[in-house]
């Protein structure tokens, strides 16, 4: 398999600068600093690199949107928040090759004209941040990063910021808000971060893996990178395989690699010799694939899109035949309900509502029409929210119900539903569909008296 990013991960000493330098670390940065920034941008554009965080937006294009006025500060934010369930590639990469990430950060910052870069890591990665912090200190010591990087006259300072536990901080504007010391409420676009980002200044937010690719591209040339892969998906992709496989872990595959090949060989096949039931190819925010759908697919943006799903963050979650899909979906729905930041209406109310209905369904209190209700609620969230979390929460719900509908329908009550309590209590019967129960009719008689008056 093609190894670009994971070439040196097996050596624990790679975290130390001396070892890393021997394996050509910071070669790409040295190369980049000899070029004017716009040529670095052009090189990345030529490589066809697309963002590895989930959306797959061309990285070079993103950089080219930065048009800072003279003297205006520009910021590079490295998104190491990695909170997408089933994704742990950034964790793996930073822990094992921190200098590669730092190099990518420095190159990107140089390319967009930023002199300050932040690496925002999720709060759970405190230990990983320490590794990265040590690497950064070494790089600064060696005058690779800092004022006058590598004697090029370019100044850069990098800070590592740890989060404190919120999925939404992985959304680029949420990350910016969090970094500014605000509630990580994503911002409405326009204006885009490239115009008004961190501190209202032009800002680029890039994923860790993207920046690692940047480092390699600058060291080895855009051509070498774009030779790998297929079509508009160039290079390699880190795939985090987890769930019902024998050997979960991070695997680097060339774009276009057969999906089943990865599961069967690298990941050791399905656990306990069971059969594959479904696989989520890119973190919980993308639609699930059934075993049949997954069989012919290759790992690249176009192939996934053709199958109605997305490569996303490359967090591949594998479900075996024993898995109860409604229970799994509830777990995912609860995740989104818990992590919805609560800023915009559809996501705030809709994610909680979907989780509620699923919980009710699994508790045996489902009502006819609940599946349609779930789909309708999902439809009302999708495309109506500020950030992508809303859409992300809908994808699993919709695809699970569509593709495993029988399992969900088995949960629905066979007979007509019990009329909900609130029709009878508290607010009085207001519809003419149901008569009063016998004991209440008796009481009614007592209150209203016999048809003739007393006295």
């Amino acid at each position: 398999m093609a190894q670009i990013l994971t070439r040196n991960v097996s050596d624990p000493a790679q975290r130390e600068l001396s070892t890393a330098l021997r394996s050509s670390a910071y070669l790409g940065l040295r190369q980049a600093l000899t070029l004017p920034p716009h040529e670095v941008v052009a090189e990345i554009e030529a490589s066809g690199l697309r963002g590895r965080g989930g959306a797959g937006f061309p990285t070079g294009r993103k950089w080219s949107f930065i048009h800072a006025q003279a003297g205006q500060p520009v910021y590079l934010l490295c998104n190491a928040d990695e909170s997408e369930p089933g994704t742990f590639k950034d964790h793996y990469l930073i822990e094992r090759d921190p200098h590669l990430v730092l190099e990518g950060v420095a190159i990107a910052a140089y390319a967009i004209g930023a002199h300050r870069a932040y690496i925002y890591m999720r709060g759970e990665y405190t230990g990983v941040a320490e590794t990265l912090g040590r690497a950064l200190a070494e790089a600064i010591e060696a005058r690779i990063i800092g004022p006058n990087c590598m004697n090029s006259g370019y100044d850069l300072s990098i800070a590592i910021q740890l989060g404190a536990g919120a999925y939404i901080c992985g959304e680029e504007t949420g990350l910016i808000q969090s970094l500014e010391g605000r509630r990580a409420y994503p911002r409405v676009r326009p204006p885009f971060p490239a115009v008004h980002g961190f501190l209202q200044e032009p800002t680029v937010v890039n994923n860790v893996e993207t920046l690692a690719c940047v480092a390699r591209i600058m060291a080895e040339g855009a051509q070498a990178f774009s030779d790998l892969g297929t079509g508009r998906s160039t290079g390699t992709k880190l795939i985090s395989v987890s769930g019902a496989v024998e050997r979960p872990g991070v695997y680097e595959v060339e774009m276009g690699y057969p999906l089943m090949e990865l599961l069967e060989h690298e990941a050791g096949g399905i656990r306990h010799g069971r059969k594959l039931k479904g696989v989520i190819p890119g973190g919980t925010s993308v639609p699930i694939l059934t075993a049949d759908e997954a069989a012919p697919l290759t790992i690249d943006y176009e192939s996934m899109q053709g199958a109605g799903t997305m490569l996303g963050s490359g967090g591949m979650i594998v479900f075996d035949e024993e898995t109860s899909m409604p229970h799994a979906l509830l777990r995912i729905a609860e995740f989104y309900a818990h992590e919805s930041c609560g800023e915009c209406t559809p996501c705030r109310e809709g994610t909680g509502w979907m989780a509620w209905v699923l919980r009710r369904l699994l508790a045996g209190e489902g009502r006819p029409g609940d599946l349609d209700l779930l789909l309708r609620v999902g439809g009302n969230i999708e495309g109506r929210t500020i950030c992508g979390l809303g859409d992300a929460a809908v994808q699993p719900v919709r695809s699970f119900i569509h593709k495993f509908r029988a399992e969900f329908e088995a949960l629905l009550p066979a007979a007509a539903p019990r009329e909900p309590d609130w029709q009878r209590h508290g607010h009085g019967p207001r519809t003419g569909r149901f008569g009063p129960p016998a004991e209440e009719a008796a009481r009614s008689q007592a209150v209203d008296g016999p048809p003739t008056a007393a006295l």
Partner: protein
Amino acid sequence: MARKASRVVDVRQAAESGRDILSSTAGTLAGMEVTLRNMVRATVGRQHVTIQYPEQRKPYSRRFRGVHILTHRADGSLKCTACYLCETVCPAQCITIEAKEVQDPRVEKAPSRYEIDLSRCIFCGFCVEACPEEALIMSREYDLTALSRGPETLAYGIDQLTQRPEIAAYGAGFRPHMQYPLVESYLPGEPIPPREG
């Protein structure tokens, strides 16, 4: 304007002629059939159509719209939350409400003054229809009398609308959704069922 003479009957002429006297009397008797039948029933059968009011009283429909009742909750507090819907809808503008804040965490708000000027009330029942909580219903009390006109005597306040003995005597009257029992609304003196759980 000329009309056909044949269609005009001269009544006086007809009476004087005396030819139709028998048929005229028969017609009169036929018209009095009900009266006569009742006369016979009352005198011979002693079945009275009139009653000796006020010693005797007529039963009225359960939907009768009599003097209002303010209902209360199981704990005895007024059900009314002073939402002003009855005051708003009242076409005679005879309802006056003043609200106060109460410490009950469930309701927050209750009337400090609730007055229906019954001398202006037209007993249309709109107030009862407007009430979202059956806090205001009507009774079957119909014999509302006072020694003078005006709000001093016929403006009923909270006490009269909840406590007056006539409520128990006449019973509850009109309210919307009569086909259902009252929900969590009670009349004075009504036994309150023990709370569940």
